[in-house]
């Protein structure tokens, strides 16, 4: 355990305001060298704004950053890099078409007067890669590497800049557990080299495993800094993040099920290896659990008609629905929240009001042509209040909302409709604890209204928490069905793990 000395990196009353939003409010805390310091908080708490100020993208309106006791002002990202600060973002900033060596020294290729010294470049690249213990060819193109390897390149990039402060922003969201172990090993190594490490993550279990200290942000304010994590519980951290006692958050409760809302028979299409059969009753929440590549998203998209199935039958509330595309699906009462909300869910440059009303205009347009601005505003306002969407006004561009609120906007789009079945694909991906609980409550309320919910998720705790029944998918097939009572984490995971084909023993359906 390293002694706590004057922090190497100190944030002093950092404040940053955007139109309509105070992103950071006098945030003050310090990160000591030789420690891994966690930064946790809900989406919209100010973590990414803080990182952007740290890396020189934004300049604070008030307050300052001190490095080794001296106040520093960064006029650009180059200044921050020169000061030895490197931020490794969730979306890795590498150039896919260039080689590993070029990416490592991006911005400071060795050479004279603009002429690149390739020999020196490759030798240096090999040196840094071996320091990390990575066996990557420095001439390989980055786009051919896996996500975990690319992350290693980013870390090596930080080493080439001799970074004294390295900040990680949600580094584990796309990694397997083995890769996470490797990453943690590397981070501990960096820490032992007396660098200051800032670790931003939603996953509290990782924070407890890796970090020495933690700061909680909420609504732009620094709520509390824990200099040691020994003796703390996850619940305490969650309460600090959310500002409410843990018992206020979501609680599961069973509800009566009606007749079948959704019935799928023999559905086959891209991404599925065997015909899919399932049913969801009215008021039931059915989870589709599987690992990456299991075919969950593909199945949902086939049911919705976003991708045309090659054969099969989908029935809604007992009637066969010839769903050929999203428009028919909506007319039959089937609605879909896609996995990647930024890419497929919201229209980022349009307002909250427009995004909410996108699908429902035909209901309050007399000719299906003219819109009624008053009714549009009313509808949007009603949904914003119902779902507690945090936005200063209805005209706010959706891209300025946090991830959790963007997801609520996508959900809000469907709530005013005559909803029979809702298909949710990873509804809480990248969303923090507080907003997650709110979305679970919304899903629950939908089910209680009689809607059939089919939820695809790769987060096991989530599926176990809210679903009445769990369907496990593996390699393009539905392989098992478990009731809530019978589902344990070990059992579900065992069914979801890929087996070599042909399998000797198959789980009974």
């Amino acid at each position: 355990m390293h002694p706590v000395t004057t922090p190497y990196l100190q944030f002093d009353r950092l404040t940053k305001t955007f139109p309509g939003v105070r992103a950071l409010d006098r945030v003050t805390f310090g990160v000591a060298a030789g420690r891994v310091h966690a930064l946790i908080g809900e989406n919209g708490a100010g973590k990414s704004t803080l990182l952007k100020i740290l890396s020189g993208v934004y300049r604070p309106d008030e307050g300052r950053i001190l490095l080794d006791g001296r106040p520093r002002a960064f006029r650009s990202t180059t200044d921050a890099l020169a000061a030895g600060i490197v931020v490794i973002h969730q979306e890795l900033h590498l150039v896919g078409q260039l080689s590993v060596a070029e990416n490592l020294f991006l911005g400071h290729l060795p050479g004279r007067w603009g002429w690149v010294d390739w020999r020196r470049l490759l030798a240096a690249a090999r040196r840094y890669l071996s320091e990390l213990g990575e066996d990557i060819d420095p001439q390989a193109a980055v786009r051919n590497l896996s996500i975990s390897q690319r992350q290693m390149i980013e870390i090596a990039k930080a080493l080439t800049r001799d970074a004294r402060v390295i900040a990680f922003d949600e580094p584990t969201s796309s990694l397997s557990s083995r890769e996470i172990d490797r990453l943690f090993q590397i981070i501990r190594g960096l820490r032992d080299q007396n660098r200051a490490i800032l670790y931003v993550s939603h996953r509290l279990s990782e924070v407890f495993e890796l970090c020495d200290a933690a700061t909680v942000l909420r609504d732009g304010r620094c709520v509390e800094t824990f200099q040691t994590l020994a003796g703390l519980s996850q619940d305490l951290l969650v309460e600090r993040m959310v500002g409410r006692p843990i018992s206020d958050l979501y609680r599961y409760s069973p509800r009566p099920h009606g007749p079948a809302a959704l019935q799928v028979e023999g559905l086959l299409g891209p991404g599925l290896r065997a015909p899919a059969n399932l049913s969801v009753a009215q008021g039931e929440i059915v989870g589709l659990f599987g690992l990456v590549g299991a075919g969950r998203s593909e199945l949902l998209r086939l049911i919705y008609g976003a991708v045309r199935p090659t054969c099969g039958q989908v029935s809604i509330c007992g009637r066969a629905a010839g769903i050929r595309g999203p428009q028919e699906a909506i007319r039959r009462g089937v609605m879909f929240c896609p996995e990647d909300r930024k890419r497929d869910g919201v229209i980022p440059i349009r307002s909250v009001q427009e995004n909410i009303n996108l699908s429902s205009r035909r209901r309050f347009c007399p000719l299906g042509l003219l819109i009624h601005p008053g009714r549009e505003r009313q509808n949007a306002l009603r949904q914003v209040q119902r779902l507690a969407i945090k936005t200063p006004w209805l005209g706010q561009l959706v891209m300025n909302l946090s991830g959790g609120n963007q997801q609520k906007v996508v959900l809000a789009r469907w709530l005013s409709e005559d909803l029979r079945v809702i298909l949710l694909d990873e509804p809480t991906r990248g969303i923090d604890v507080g907003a997650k609980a709110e979305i679970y409550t919304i899903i629950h309320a939908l089910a209680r209204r009689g809607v059939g919910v089919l939820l695809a998720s790769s987060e096991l705790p989530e599926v176990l928490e809210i679903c009445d029944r769990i369907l496990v998918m593996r390699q393009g097939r539905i392989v098992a069905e478990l009731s809530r009572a019978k589902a344990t984490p070990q059992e579900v995971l065992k069914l979801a793990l890929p087996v070599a084909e042909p399998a000797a023993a198959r789980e009974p359906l």
Partner: protein
Amino acid sequence: MPRFFSPRPTVRTRRLLTARLGSLWQGSGMLVVFAIIFLTASLGVPHFFSWVNMTGLMLSVATIGTIACTMLFCLASGDFDLSVGSVVAMSGVLAAVVVNFTGSVGLGIAAGILAGGLVGLVNGLAIAAVGINALITTLATMQIVRGMSYIISDGKAVGVREPAFFSLGISSFLGLPTPVWIMIGCFVIFGLLLNQTTFGRNTLAIGGNREAARLAGVAVRGTKIAIFTLQGLVAGFAGVILASRMTSGQPATAQGLELQVISACVLGGVSLTGGVGTITGVIVGVLIMGTIQNAMNLLNIPPFYQYVASGVILLAAVMVDRLRQRTIA
């Protein structure tokens, strides 16, 4: 209690006000630029600020202004249309030929408009149904249609022999020439279409995020085909009016018109990547272009220098707008 709010007690009225003011400032930048340019011209250029000159100014941008209304929809949905100049030429030539051949002015006008619509439909089908890139498709139709206008006219101007045809372009009503009234009418109609109809809002949604719009149940293909067809019809109409003003169909006219129309839209704040655009912006953009050109003519600036000046002003105006947007972030 503020009108728009979220039930969380953290949102205050002050935040709401700054958010709305911020968005208002962002949206009205080019209006300010136009005001500056107009004021400068009124004070600095003799004879600029007179009724005669104002009508002349508006007449000079009538063609651009009319087509800019539909180009707004095209750009807002995330596409391009480079074929409008050729359509203008072809429809004028076709109208002239039909009028001379049949003796009926109405038939000639209808032929021009419908031919334009047909080109637009072909564009729309190729782009939305088949999926070819809009830039390449309209580049191709631009060539094809231009060629057709030379073929129909046999390479020469087609003088119209029915004087009734000229009334469209030369007449005036309440002091304003008819083409100007038509441009104003288009502003009103397409402004309503953009703001008050599902079609208009869907256009912006498609341009903002095409896949999200599709998954939300918006008829993406149908909307795009409709946009290009409308654009073809309007360009056809503009071509007929132009032919009426010139009393003949000219196969070589309107070269480069498409770029001028797109420039007017960009000046008006329409985003080239789609999803952003307003009719007021387009009006401002068209007026900026008209004012600058008009002022330069009054100052007797030689035409070669006018090219340079127009380009520089376009660049400067957009740069000012970008800088202003960045200071808000």
